[in-house]
């Protein structure tokens, strides 16, 4: 049986992992290679690196990070953050990434999804969607625009810019264009550690025929379980609970296994 994946996410800036990483076991908690190897030993199913600087200088530094990690860690690597065109994707993939995550660039130019999928295969293209729950009904013009019945709006630019696009419609469109996987982040839940947005996760997961990675809100192991069982996520992404050492990946997997979820132990 295909197992459910647990994917730790590492934020990288200037070649260093940032955002509250507190492992006493590591010599240098900011070294991407050391952290990647640590998570690999712990049983992480994939690693997600997010370049949070995303300038063109940062791209070269990120490629170097990917190269160094891929020399020592033999599990799938997804890299996202600031990738704007097929050339950016190619360089990251040649560096040793297996998948590229695109978000803002895909919203601005949806054809980029098709170009990337044609060039590198659907399985390489992860479309990241940052979605925020609407507080009131909005009706706009356009095939993907918010309308009656819309519940979540797509944001870009690291969650700073509302787009007027319906997250559910965008998810379907991204898959139709060739996305092989969706990385779905609930902006409402992100960072709060009060659980994933299960309604959002389930709505998107049921609407598309590609794997959905749930992201944003994990605070307990039960939250991971809920995202998989109620949200129907194929994988769960988490940062804080692993980085701060609240739970280890192995603990998370053992918990899920006890609850009857197929995981790789």
């Amino acid at each position, binding site marked *: 049986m295909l197992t459910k994946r647990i994917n730790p996410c590492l934020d990288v800036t200037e070649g260093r992992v940032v955002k509250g990483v507190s492992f006493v076991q590591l010599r240098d908690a900011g070294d991407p290679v050391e952290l990647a190897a640590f998570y690999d030993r712990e049983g992480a199913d994939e690693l997600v690196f997010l370049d949070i600087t995303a300038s063109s200088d940062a791209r070269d530094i990120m490629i170097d990070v990917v190269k160094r990690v891929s020399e020592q860690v*033999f599990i*799938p690597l997804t890299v996202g953050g600031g990738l704007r065109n097929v050339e950016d994707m190619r360089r990251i993939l040649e560096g040793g990434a297996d998948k590229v995550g695109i978000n803002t660039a895909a919203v601005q130019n949806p054809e980029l999804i098709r170009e990337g999928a044609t060039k590198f295969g659907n*399985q390489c293209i992860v479309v990241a969607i940052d979605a925020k729950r609407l507080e009131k009904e909005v009706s706009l013009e356009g095939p993907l625009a918010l309308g009656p019945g819309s519940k979540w709006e797509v944001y870009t630019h690291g969650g700073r810019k509302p787009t007027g696009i319906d997250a559910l419609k965008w998810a379907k469109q991204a898959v139709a264009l060739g996305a092989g996987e969706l990385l779905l982040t609930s902006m409402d839940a992100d960072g709060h550690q009060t659980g994933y947005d299960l309604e959002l996760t389930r709505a998107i997961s049921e609407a598309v025929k590609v794997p959905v990675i749930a992201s944003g809100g994990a605070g307990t192991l039960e939250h991971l379980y809920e995202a998989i069982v109620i949200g129907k996520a194929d994988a769960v992404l988490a940062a804080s609970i692993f980085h701060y050492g609240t739970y280890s990946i192995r603990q998370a997997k053992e918990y899920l296994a006890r609850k009857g979820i197929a995981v*790789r132990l």
Partner: protein
Amino acid sequence: MIAIIDYGAGNLRSVAKAIAGLGYEARVTSSPDEVLNADAVILPGVGAAGDTMNSLEALGMADPIRQVVAQNRPFFGVCLGLQVLFGNSEEGGGQRCLDLIPGMVRRLPPHLKVPHMGWNQVSQRMAHPLFEGIPDGANFYFVHSYYADPEEKAIIAGETEYGVSFPSVIIKGNLVATQFHPEKSGDLGLKMYHNFLKFGLGGRYGGHPRHRP
């Protein structure tokens, strides 16, 4: 020297690093001569069957691959590198492949999420040095939308379930092919490459692993 065939697609770096880390000289190459002179050949695979076949033909690589396999020299096909060994693929409305193994490559069942992406179990169907130190039912990393259906069932060394039971490991003499990616399957994936090179090269050319195989 272990030749890793470069036909302009995908992540060859991980394969090369995995092999080099096992203590072998790995060479990423698009030269037919290097492939013909290699001690073992790895055909990695990412992308579409049609593009791959076109690229292999354009590089003059189809015949060297046929020769290496016909001579029963150590050969490892990975993912699409397994699929293109078959006669035909359903991909892209029908694609002629290398036809080294009789059988078809079929689309995974439509009611499931495709690609089949993630870690899944490999049930071993034979005892073989390739599986030395690898538990039956161990998880390996898959990413694919099509699967091979060989005519000769005796070559199926491992099977995996995803809506259908499909061959995830094929062994025919010194030809090994996996539907999963050993270079993305952690320690057990590296162990599988190590085992392949050990039995394929018959100890002629021992590896000195830096990894934990």
